[in-house]
């Protein structure tokens, strides 16, 4: 299944794209797995995700924590802590 990954703010800038569609390899079950896998995809990803604890994640446009299962996610967004308001 294809999953759309969306990036915002400095995560987007460091990865170098605002979104991409990926086929997740077998064994990527949680958000934490996804972050680890993405880091192996190149320098930009490594730079963006070098401190995975600060990365906030939304699945299908709802906040989740890093233990959340990602099976069935159409859209996963990665972004820094929010600074609106």
């Amino acid at each position, binding site marked *: 299944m294809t999953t759309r990954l*969306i990036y*915002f*703010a*400095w995560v987007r800038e460091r990865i170098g794209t605002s979104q991409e569609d990926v086929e997740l390899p077998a064994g990527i079950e949680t958000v934490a797995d996804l972050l680890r896998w993405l880091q192996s995809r190149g320098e930009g990803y490594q730079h963006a995700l070098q401190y995975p604890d600060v990365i906030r994640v*939304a699945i299908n*446009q*709802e*906040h989740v924590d890093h233990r959340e299962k990602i099976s069935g996610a159409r859209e996963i*967004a990665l*972004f*820094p*802590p*929010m*600074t*609106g*308001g």
Partner: protein
Amino acid sequence: MPAVLVPTVRIQRQDFDVAAEIAALTQGHADIGAVVTFSGLCRDEQGALSALELEHYPGMAEAEIGRIAIEATERWPLQGLTVIHRHGKIAPGANIVLVVAASAHRHAAFEAANFLMDYLKSRAPFWKKEHRTDGSEGGWVDAKETDAEAARRWKQPSSE
């Protein structure tokens, strides 16, 4: 049971008119005794800032603020609630965010507006980038731990 209040949530590039938003919320309601408005503006940081650029997550921004607004209507007896958040490039002195909470009495309106702003700061998917007057790279605004703490104080034992 009173009619369920549906909050007004708007994510927009254009400016808003505070007085017009208050009027829209209170028109035809004789049961409102208190209206609290909060507006957040762009600071110039002693002249160092030429603009703030607000990036947002379209779709989720509306959804998340909608969820926070509905929680506010469940926690306080509100007669009206409007939340507007702007995105794009915003000049010093210009509006960024507006919360208007209307209730029979002031306590609920104050509390709800305060709650909305604290939650918005740490849960609404917006990110501020600074543009500096000297032309140097401004960078992304860092999230403040004080904002996260402010949001946590509203946590109820029953939630999450």
